[in-house]
């Protein structure tokens, strides 16, 4: 049996990904297409830069008044009949959701796509509590049937080919073999309708929560989130504390940024704006709405400007698609719920650096993520910050000695000349073994520039 994915095994998981030709094809196609569509959508939007800057300012303002806006949001939501719960960590959030289910004798649960529920490992917790969660987003459902985890924030199953998905459906759902994508999607429509019809409880994420009105917004393309939030008699929405925005009018900025950054769409097919429990006169919708507000490490990012910016993230996935490392190794290599550049900066902050210290080093610092980010997160700056923090707390002695020696040599020109001349005389001293695995190394030049300068002047 394969070992479960872990951020501690980034190197071996990445190596495995590099050797998987099917995965390589899928990644190249997916990241290429997403990046291309995003680029076209951004180019067609004249206001892009001002939208980004506005979004960043709104987010920064909100975070600096986060206590007030969360309290406003909770008060507005409660005034309109929503039950608001607070959870300090993932375990507590799972317990809140289990308790709601238990109190309602609910055992059948449908879910729409939510990375936050992945983050708290809700499905596992529910199964232990003998509640049967069914993912209803096509990609998430495929992943659930396969017993895997998402490999992309917005396209969870991009690592799988249609042939692999067809085999999975044949095995798990006993369909006739087919590789027609239309037919595979039709299978999902048919199978999941039964689950929607029978579900007691619907769990969704939240894209934006409006403090002013107590509204929550859910963006999607398939319609499964609409089903999840309309058909079951109980709706539970899970949101991180950073999802709140001050005013209803602020949505105009984010509704333009998120779809363009994620899929290159001007707008997603469906926006559900849910403000409070349905009125007695309303014919449709749940009779109980719960919102669970989750911390799980987020508040720890507020204290410093460099870390706080990570809370701007609206989970669009744009940084994944443009990242040269993600493009090569895909999401599973990171071994964390959130992959790619944004995953490498938020995972260590959410779960601690002990087991995630490899992630901030999984980057060439090319800066493409920063350029693509719709809310102005300087991911390279944050990567460097985390690297320094990791090194100060847990660097290997050998690395520390190596850099001490290096600095010793670099601060005085005579030491610098001595050590470079030493390396020139004894080339084996240069630590380039790993370079030479797959590249030629030119070696040090017979004469340095400074020698030329001295000789010629």
């Amino acid at each position, binding site marked *: 049996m394969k070992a479960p994915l872990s951020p501690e095994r980034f190197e071996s998981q990445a190596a495995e990904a*590099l050797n998987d030709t099917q995965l390589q094809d899928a990644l190249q196609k997916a990241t290429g297409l997403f990046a291309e569509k995003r680029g076209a959508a951004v180019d067609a939007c004249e206001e892009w830069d001002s939208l980004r800057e506005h979004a960043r300012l709104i987010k920064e303002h909100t975070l600096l008044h986060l206590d007030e806006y969360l309290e406003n949001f909770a008060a507005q939501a409660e005034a309109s009949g929503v039950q608001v719960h607070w959870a300090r960590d993932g375990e507590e959030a799972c317990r809140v959701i289990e308790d709601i289910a238990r109190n309602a004798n609910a055992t059948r649960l449908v879910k729409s796509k939510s990375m936050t529920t992945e983050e708290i490992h809700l499905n596992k917790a529910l199964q232990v509590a003998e509640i049967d969660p069914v993912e209803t987003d096509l990609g998430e459902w495929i992943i659930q049937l396969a017993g895997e985890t998402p490999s992309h924030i917005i396209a969870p199953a991009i690592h799988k080919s249609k042939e692999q998905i067809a085999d999975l459906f044949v095995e798990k759902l006993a369909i006739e073999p087919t590789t027609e994508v239309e037919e595979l999607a039709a299978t999902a429509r048919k199978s999941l309708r039964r689950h929607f019809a029978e579900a007691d409880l619907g769990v969704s994420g939240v894209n934006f929560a409006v403090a002013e009105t107590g509204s929550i917004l859910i963006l999607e393309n398939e319609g499964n989130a609409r089903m999840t939030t309309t058909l079951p008699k109980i709706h539970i929405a899970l949101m991180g504390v950073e999802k709140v925005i001050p005013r209803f009018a602020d949505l105009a900025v984010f509704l333009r940024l998120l779809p363009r950054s994620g899929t290159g769409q001007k707008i997603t097919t469906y926006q559900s704006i849910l403000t409070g429990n349905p009125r007695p006169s309303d014919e449709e919708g749940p009779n109980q709405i719960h919102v669970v507000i989750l911390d799980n490490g987020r508040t720890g990012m507020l204290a410093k400007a460099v870390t706080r910016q990570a809370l701007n993230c609206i989970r669009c996935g744009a940084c994944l698609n443009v990242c040269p490392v993600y493009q090569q190794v895909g999401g599973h290599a990171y071994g964390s719920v959130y992959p790619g550049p944004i995953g490498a900066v938020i995972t260590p902050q959410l779960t601690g650096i002990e087991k995630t210290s490899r992630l901030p080093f999984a980057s060439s610092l090319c800066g493409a993520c920063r350029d693509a980010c719709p809310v102005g997160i300087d991911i390279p700056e944050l990567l460097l910050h985390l690297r320094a923090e990791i090194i100060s707390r847990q660097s290997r002695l050998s690395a520390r000695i190596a850099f001490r020696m*290096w*600095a010793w040599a670099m601060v005085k020109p005579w030491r610098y000349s001595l050590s470079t001349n030493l390396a020139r005389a004894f080339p084996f001293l240069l630590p380039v073994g790993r370079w030479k695995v797959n590249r030629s190394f030119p070696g040090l030049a017979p004469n340095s520039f400074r020698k030329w300068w001295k000789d010629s002047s």
Partner: protein
Amino acid sequence: MRVSLFVSCLVDQVRPEAGISAVKVLKQAGCDVSFPQGQTCCGQPAFNSGHLPEACRVASSFLEVFADAEVIVVPSGSCAAMISHMPSLFAEGSREKELAEAIARKTHEFSSFLVNNLGVQNLGARFAGRVVWHDACHALRDLHIKSGPRRLLAEVEDLELVNWSASDACCGFGGTFAVKHPDISVAILDSKLKELETLGVDAVASGDAGCLMQIEGRLDRQRSSIQGLHLAEILASR
């Protein structure tokens, strides 16, 4: 104009011809070039690896060496970007921070200095061959250097600048990243180089010796005849 050249440790030790060419080009453009002898490295390898105390020590020594320079020119986008980050290494109000800020203001990447400060375009260079340009990430995304080097290359006699769809893709070098993750580093490069052989070019040109070492090292391992050239080397050829 009096110009202090910071060649970078990589150019000094591995690719001195890039530095020598930069001197020739700057002189050709009318500059009085000096080479402060105390210089070594800007500290970037430590800075990017998270070893901040060491990065600070090396950066301080860099600042002392260049404290009196009028203008500093660097034939590397990556080192120029590092110098622009230096103020963040030192405490608010410290003498070093002030110095770092002053030095950051008077430091220019080589191509940007030629185009934006000196306003030169044609330096009378001649290079027969088909060439693609590689945008080094820090030059492109930190310093926003994009059209300058292309304009300089376009003026070189007999040089044909070939359009390359992957010109702004990362080469996978990333300093210590290249040795920490050699397989990923080269996978990134191979994906960038995929189309290169079909373009029928003679050279890949760039403004950063690190990227060139990566690209050339791989091309050489694959027995390709395509060579890597620093922009200064092309501009100095006759």
